[in-house]
């Protein structure tokens, strides 16, 4: 990869004055029209075809593979389509499993925006040409022809590219050993850290025992190893845990680097005791520090050659990672990636919530099996008067008739002018909670309503949204599920503790922003996942309210003893919220 500094191109001067002018030419620096077309994969080469097959198997959503193929082929002659750059550094190797894993994630992210943009591959790596039919050599000019960029494997390169176009460093989840909520590293380039720098001596002073270190592969690893070596010189014992992105090649290098020092323990990805007490104190990847459950001690980030003390002013999550499912929401993704950072920082508060506009409701349907039930549910959604609805079906390894039922439902609901999307998870083993969580994160509505595939709703279910302004701090439960009219925040937690999940598993409407504040669903829970969400929502200040809509089917409240058992497992979540969001599930 070229190491020359990349100079951002200057925008041409804009005409001033107030005379009417005719817009003649577009901004040359923004030009992306017809630059390269979609990245036709090099399928002629059997070896490359094998690699692509393996890449597609890594995708979470099978439909993303279809989308990628569809747009790469059918839109190949769309000269007017702007491009997004996929920048692979010179060191990219198709032989490295870690590199391919990151590439698979990047391609899956791109697949969700390929209806808007085509993809231009920019790289000086010889292996890039093995995988893609058209590869453009890296240069400032080639980057500037694109509207934005995804950079693999190099944070430094990400910073360079971000000086020209909005760019993100994208990588697979470094902490994939966590059973809950897989993530995608999606780090904005050129973001200055808001943390205070920390000296080696401070870390050494603070270390009372063996320090847990997280080590992710990036282009700063040599400097990071040197910094860890300095700590060792000061007598700090280290327990190094490798990122789950690491492959054998990387692990071998790290083992070799510390082979001579018996006081450094290098562990393979699963850290010791992570179930209960694992807490990384030093990391070169902020995601590993941000997603820890119980950060009780000072943590240090290694970034740009030095340590930084991770303080209370944690930056916005959207600058660092996506939870799985969010990559399917093209609008949210592009908003975070290409949108103005000042607008994003201000949050979604520009439009006063409630009253001004009727909210869009996202109905999320996790569908593992069932066929006629899905059609019955679709029919009940079809019969609703409320028009602003999106339906997200999330299926996972179900039988063919389930997929066919979902497809029929899609066609049926499209006639009603609802927005319909299908997420088809490749892994059959994911829990119902995981399916719901991914569906909710992929949804784009103001309100979310999860319905089980064997439920159905009666006409006028969403009529309450037209009667009075909706609130983003309220759990709206159907009339079937609860007896009381409303529960204020203090009452809600007490009522949940006393009565169990009286709100029910299914049919409760809640604001998407509330879901984010509550930290999402716990993938490992099965019968009590919804209950845990209501509980965390109550802790985040939510209230509950009954509405007149009626739900039919299996969405009955969970028995008290089951809920009480679940509550016992939630005993340690009385933690302050962090950055407006509760501590995430591990």
């Amino acid at each position, binding site marked *: 990869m070229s190491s020359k500094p990349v100079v951002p191109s200057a925008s041409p001067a804009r005409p001033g004055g*107030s005379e009417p002018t005719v*817009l003649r030419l*577009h901004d040359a620096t923004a030009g992306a029209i017809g630059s390269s077309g979609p990245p036709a994969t090099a399928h002629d080469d059997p070896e490359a075809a094998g690699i692509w097959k393996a890449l597609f198997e890594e995708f979470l959503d099978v439909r993303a593979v279809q989308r990628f193929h569809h747009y790469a082929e059918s839109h190949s002659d769309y000269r007017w389509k*702007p491009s997004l750059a996929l920048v692979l550094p010179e060191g990219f190797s198709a032989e490295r499993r870690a590199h391919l894993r990151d590439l698979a994630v990047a391609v899956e992210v791109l697949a969700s925006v390929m209806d808007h943009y085509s993809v231009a591959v920019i790289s000086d790596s010889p292996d890039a040409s093995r995988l893609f039919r058209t590869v453009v050599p890296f240069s400032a000019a080639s980057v500037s022809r694109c509207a934005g960029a995804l950079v693999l494997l190099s944070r430094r390169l990400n910073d360079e590219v971000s000086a020209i176009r909005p760019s993100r460093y994208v990588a697979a989840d470094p902490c994939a050993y966590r059973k809950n909520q897989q993530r995608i590293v999606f780090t904005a380039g050129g973001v200055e850290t808001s943390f205070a720098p920390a000296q080696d001596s401070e870390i050494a002073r603070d270390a009372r025992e063996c320090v847990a270190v997280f080590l992710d592969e990036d282009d700063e690893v040599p400097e990071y190893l040197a910094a860890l070596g300095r700590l060792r010189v000061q007598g700090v014992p280290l327990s190094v845990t490798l990122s789950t992105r690491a492959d054998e090649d990387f692990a071998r290098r790290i083992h070799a680097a510390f082979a001579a020092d018996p006081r450094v323990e290098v562990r393979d990805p699963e850290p010791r005791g992570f179930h209960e007490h694992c807490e990384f104190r030093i990391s070169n990847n902020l995601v590993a520090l941000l997603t820890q459950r119980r950060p009780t001690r000072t943590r240090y980030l290694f970034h740009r050659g030095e340590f930084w003390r991770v303080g209370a002013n944690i930056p916005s999550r959207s600058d660092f990672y996506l939870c799985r499912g969010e990559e399917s929401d093209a609008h949210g993704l*592009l908003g975070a990636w290409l*949108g103005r950072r000042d607008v994003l920082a201000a949050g979604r508060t520009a439009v006063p919530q409630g009253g001004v506009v009727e909210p869009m409701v996202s109905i999320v349907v996790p569908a593992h099996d069932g066929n006629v039930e899905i059609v019955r549910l679709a029919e009940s959604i079809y019969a609703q008067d409320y028009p602003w609805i*999106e339906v997200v079906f999330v299926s996972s390894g179900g039988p063919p008739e389930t997929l066919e039922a979902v497809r029929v439902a899609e066609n049926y609901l499209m006639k009603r002018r609802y927005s319909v999307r299908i997420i088809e998870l490749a892994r059959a083993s994911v829990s119902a909670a995981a399916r719901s969580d991914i569906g909710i994160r992929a949804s784009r509505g103001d309100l979310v309503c999860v319905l089980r595939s064997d439920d159905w709703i009666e006409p006028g279910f969403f009529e309450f949204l037209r009667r009075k302004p909706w609130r983003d701090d309220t759990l709206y439960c159907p009339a079937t599920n609860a007896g009381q009219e409303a529960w204020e925040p203090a009452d809600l937690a007490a009522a949940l503790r006393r009565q169990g999940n009286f709100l029910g598993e299914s049919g409760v409407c809640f604001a998407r922003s509330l879901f984010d504040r509550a930290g999402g669903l716990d993938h490992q829970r099965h019968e009590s996942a919804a209950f845990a969400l209501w509980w965390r929502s109550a802790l985040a200040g939510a209230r509950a309210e009954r509405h007149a809509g009626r739900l039919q089917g299996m969405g009955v409240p969970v028995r008290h003893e089951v809920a009480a058992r679940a509550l016992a497992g939630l005993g340690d979540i009385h933690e302050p919220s962090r950055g407006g969001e509760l501590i995430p599930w591990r």
Partner: protein
Amino acid sequence: MAMKRVGCLLPAMGVYGGINIILNWAVILARAGYRVDLILPPSKCVSSSALPFLAPEDGRLLHPVSEVEARLHRYHAVIATHWSSIALLAELTADHHAWFMQAYESQFSALNSPEQADFDALVASQMNVITTARWLQQHILRHYHFEPKQTFCVLSGLDKTLWRPEPRIPLGPQSRPVCFLVEGPVTDPRKNVAHTVRLLETLGVRYRWVGAIVDRALVGPNCAGIDENVPYRRMPQIYASADVLVKASNSEGMFGPPLEMFATGGTAVSWHVQGAEEYMSDRYNGYLVPMNSWSGLAEAILELVAAPERVRRLQENALATVEAWPTWEDQADQILTTIESLVPFGRCSLVRQVAKNRFRPIVHSQPLVAESQRAAAEAARAERAEAELAGLRHELASSRAWRLVGAVRRARTLLAPDRSRRWAVLRYAGRIVWRAGRRLRSSARSA
């Protein structure tokens, strides 16, 4: 060699975006040497000079004919342009039959209406389908099990002699505020025009409204102007009077208005309706927000109001998009290739669908009619019986035994077909007899 004849079936002639596309196709075919008949219902047939959208010399190339006349000819291809043409399509003699599908027309019909069923029936006949957007082609392949060789997609070209950059006062921090444009008739529920106007009023941003039918009662102080029923040729100037087109339509085919706005040098903020992906890229040449999300649309509008320089950049990119977009002349080859690539189609399945559609109302309505006639007769009889019973009650209140017997007989005759009512009358009569007996007994005791 005889001139190949192509027939386009139109339900009516009018100033609609869809008709414009069909006429452009027809002109291209006519220029290439085909004889193109525009087949219209006899009551709606027009002369060549009355064709909208077209220059007079282009209009003269086309031949509007009535359905009656079209039955006399043999066509190389007949193309239905609306699902309602199915019956006539089966009657016309042609080597190739095709359906020109510009939108997922099933969305236009009322819920669960016979029209929706007819649409599905026509698609199920599996003739050639020519679409104007990739998503439509994909949709029918996915949901209606077509052979790929039977489906075609030709993107609509743009008339760049009409739609070209128009002068605008530049936007800037110190200049005028961003002006939005609402386009569409207030009567079409798919376009959500009334909601859009209300949203812009609520947000307090400046806007104009152009539409075939407008409702002046909807607009408020933020409306800078209303243009109703504007001739097509004047539309570019109307578009140029605003900076950003706002579209909250949730059913489209090719989705033309934003492209036309791009061509005049404007940009657009729109729901991500089907067809938008053909040329719109979120945050590059316009803003696309999730379909059915009013809050998303409101956020995008407010973001553009706050950042005129961003509007300017979107407009520049939008213009670049249009520069690369094909004109109708650019698309001519594809159109001609498509007409020559149509798969021969036996009319059997079409006739079967027509028969199904024809017989459906009869098969479904006959028992219904009988049932309703029977119910009406029953109701009339019950009404008469009720009136009679009321009279009887009055009569029986001061009755004598012989009058009672007569009344009961009449009531039984009247209500004979209805067993339950017959017993009710008997029960009622019995009760009166019993009461009369009790009165007699008590008066005898007292005496």
